[in-house]
């Protein structure tokens, strides 16, 4: 038996931090709040490291039971935790990147009046995410799932006094909810057919069902519904619309939640459910198609955006599409690998963008940046590494993971060259827009507004997220923000090297081998040369993107405008994100609001409910108005009433007596 690792501490520690900061933070000093927040998230990270160290001595999967939860007839779900290679990877990513971002946020949010609230929410998010990752049953995972949605809402709308931020928070939560609906239906189906939501129990029940058996339809349905949930949480078509708007939140939030961890929950969930997906080829195809389309679609939007964070947002959507493409062709380990490297370089990109925004005093429009390599050298260096990584240029991390995905997309038995081709095109576009960002932001001359030299240019409080004209020249960020950037840059550089020689894949393979359909893995090994050539193609695509960006945004800076003008309407469509938000508004939001107003409000609420209440009061009043006339003050009419009444009484008594 395994010795107890006290896994439950890992989620609970950040929860404690959230509670302490939430209740006591308002009156505490910044130092106290910082200490609490960093201590608890750091403790979680330390525990995760310790678990990793002990990992090889464990017998897997390691399950730890904390407490009873639900016992309803034959159905039971408990507070219990589950550890295997997959959850270990997720654990390390979440706690590690999370801790780094906590450190970064100390510097970024220092001047914010709601400093304590930010860290309380951040810790709360860590708690939910860790619950999601460590859960041993779908129900506990769903709690984490919903909880990270809540934390996302709270953090996106952190500056809730701003209308756009509040709306973005609502949008994120509502769109997530739509996905959760699919997730819930899938859970119901699981309960109905397997009687449990425990991972091991469910997967054991699923194993006998295969693509040719009776249960295939059920598994396909479950798979597609789970994918719907993942679309909501991980911003895939058609539910990706909340992620660009989520950039209203502070940049550390974008880094942690919308790049490294929360949005990857969908990928984790799909990977965890691989046993189901392996036996439902249609569902797998759906996953792959959605992922591929999203990757390409989002990349095309990214090339025209001018807000630095929006570019990164669409980039995230696109990279998530890659991960789902990987899962969809059965290469779950490649998807998780890319998840890990993406956490490194996308987290770095966002943190770097935050540093850039901090440097130029709140401006987010790239057209007003430029030349920042001189003013913020550390930021420049780390962002360069990140851009190279995401473009997939060897030997950085992104190259290894992206290449693995592309190769699997081509060669896997569920894959096809179409996936590969679209993937390569997307890689080209990705490289292009990332280097476009790089050129616009760091190279060239500083185009930022009237650099008014005020006497207190540097000492004034920076309104992060607001424009501050009287800022002075751009400047580098404080050390507390640079150090996490540097650490992530190192990870972005070397993080992919665990993929060399299939080391990562072999490490995580036992998870995906368990319960997998007997796959023809041998065919993949035989085509070693083909893999090499395809890798060359994808690297070439990356360099081509770099060159094009260099051409358009450094050499001949007049070209982009000319191209945009010549493309006319098509360009406008891209800039306006293909008008998808407007389409959804017209298709879903407006009818819903109209129906609600006209039917539910006017007809039901006002005419039926209000009317029944008002009319009964009215009726009582009118009735009493009529009866009032009895009290006329006229004595003779009283006598008349009395006589009539007594006659009635006499009649009644006689009738009773006669009966």
């Amino acid at each position, binding site marked *: 038996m395994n010795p107890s690792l006290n896994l439950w501490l890992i989620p609970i520690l950040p929860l404690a931090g959230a509670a302490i900061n939430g209740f006591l933070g308002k009156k505490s000093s910044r130092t106290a709040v910082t200490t609490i927040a960093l201590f608890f998230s750091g403790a979680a990270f330390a525990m995760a490291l310790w678990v990793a160290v002990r990992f090889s001595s464990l017998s897997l999967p390691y399950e730890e039971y904390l407490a009873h939860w639900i016992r309803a007839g034959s159905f039971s779900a408990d507070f219990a935790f589950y550890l295997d290679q997959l959850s270990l990877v997720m654990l390390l990513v979440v706690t590690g990147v999370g801790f780094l971002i906590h450190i970064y946020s100390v510097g970024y949010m220092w001047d914010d009046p709601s400093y304590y609230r930010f860290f309380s929410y951040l810790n709360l998010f860590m708690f939910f995410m860790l619950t999601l990752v460590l859960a041993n049953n779908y129900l506990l995972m769903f709690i984490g799932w919903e909880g990270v949605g809540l934390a996302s809402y709270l953090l996106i709308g952190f500056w809730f006094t701003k209308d756009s931020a509040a709306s973005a928070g609502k949008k994120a939560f509502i769109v997530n909810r739509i996905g959760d609906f699919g997730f819930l239906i899938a859970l119901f189906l699981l309960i109905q057919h397997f009687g449990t939501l425990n991972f091991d129990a469910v997967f054991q029940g699923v194993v006998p069902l295969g693509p040719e058996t009776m249960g295939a339809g059920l598994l396909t349905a479950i798979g597609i519904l789970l994918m719907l949930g993942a679309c909501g949480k991980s911003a895939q078509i058609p539910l990706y619309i909340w992620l660009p708007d989520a950039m209203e939140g502070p940049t550390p939030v974008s880094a942690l939640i919308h790049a490294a961890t929360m949005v990857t929950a969908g990928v984790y969930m799909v990977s965890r459910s691989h046993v189901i997906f392996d036996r439902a080829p249609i569902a797998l195809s759906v996953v792959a198609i959605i992922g591929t389309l999203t990757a390409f679609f989002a990349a095309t939007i990214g090339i025209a955006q001018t807000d630095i964070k929006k570019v990164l947002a669409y980039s995230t959507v696109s990279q998530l599409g890659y991960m789902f493409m990987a899962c969809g062709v059965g290469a779950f380990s490649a998807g998780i690998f890319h998840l890990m490297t993406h956490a490194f370089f996308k987290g770095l990109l966002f943190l770097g963008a935050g540093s850039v925004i901090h440097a130029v005093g709140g401006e987010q429009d790239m057209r007003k940046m430029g030349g920042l390599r001189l003013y913020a050298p550390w930021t420049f260096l780390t962002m360069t590494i990140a851009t190279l990584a995401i473009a997939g240029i060897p030997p950085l991390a992104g190259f290894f993971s992206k290449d693995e995905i592309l190769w699997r997309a081509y060669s896997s038995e569920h894959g096809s060259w179409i996936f590969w081709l679209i993937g390569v095109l997307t890689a080209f576009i990705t490289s292009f827009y990332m280097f476009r960002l790089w050129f616009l932001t760091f190279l060239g001359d500083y185009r930022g507004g009237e650099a008014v030299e005020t006497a207190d240019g540097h000492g004034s409080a920076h309104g992060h997220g607001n424009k501050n004209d009287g800022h002075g020249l751009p400047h580098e960020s404080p050390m507390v923000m640079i150090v996490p950037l540097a650490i992530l840059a190192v990870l972005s550089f070397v993080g992919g090297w665990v993929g060399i020689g299939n080391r990562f894949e072999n490490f995580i393979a036992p998870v995906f081998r368990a319960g997998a359909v007997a796959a023809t893995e041998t065919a993949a090994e035989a085509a070693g040369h083909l893999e090499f050539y395809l890798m060359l193609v994808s690297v070439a695509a990356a360099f081509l993107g770099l060159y094009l960006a260099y051409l358009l945004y450094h050499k001949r800076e007049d070209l982009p405008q000319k191209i945009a003008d010549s493309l006319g309407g098509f360009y406008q469509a891209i800039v306006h994100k293909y008008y998808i938000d407007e389409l959804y508004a017209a298709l879903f939001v407006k009818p819903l609001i109209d129906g609600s107003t006209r039917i539910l409000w006017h007809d039901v609420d006002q005419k039926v409910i209000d009317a029944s209440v008002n009319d009964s009061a009215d009726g009582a009043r009118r009735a009493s108005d009529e009866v009032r006339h009895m009290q006329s003050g006229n004595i003779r*009419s009283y006598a*008349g009433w009395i*006589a009539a009444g007594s*006659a009635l009484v006499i009649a009644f008594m006689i009738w009773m007596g006669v009966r």
Partner: protein
Amino acid sequence: MNFHLILFLAFGAVCVGGAINLLAQRHPINSALSLIAVMAALAGEYLLLGAEFVAAVQVIVYAGAIMVLFVFVIMLLNAGEEEHTGGSRIAILLGVPGMLTGSVLTAWVVLRHSGTQSVPIGALPGSPRDIAQLLFHDFLLPFEVTSVLILIAIMGAVVLASKPEVPAGEGER
């Protein structure tokens, strides 16, 4: 045809006539006088039933005191003939049919259950001795209470009917 019945019918006719006359007359003094006639006839009925003490009290108290009081007040207030004002329609509309219905029903019940019960003349002699025996033994408490009641009524009548007080300041002149 027995003597009892003839006497009963005679007194009864006076009662009925007096009652109808009370309704028919416009001037209250006429109504008062017919009411006195009714009471006198009723005293006769009581005698037929053997209630001699009650008959005497009826004449002395009711006809002799109460009706005198009524006549005093009519004279005092110089009540004139009734005018025909609009009045209350409800009273006529509801009251008269109601009253008629009630009385018809009551009469019907009485007649249904009357059978051959009859009351012989002088059936229950109510001599003062017997009345006093009952009044001062079994009904002593109500008797005392009614005396208190009369006292209160006297005080009430005096207070209500007295002239309103003259304000103190004007009493000097």
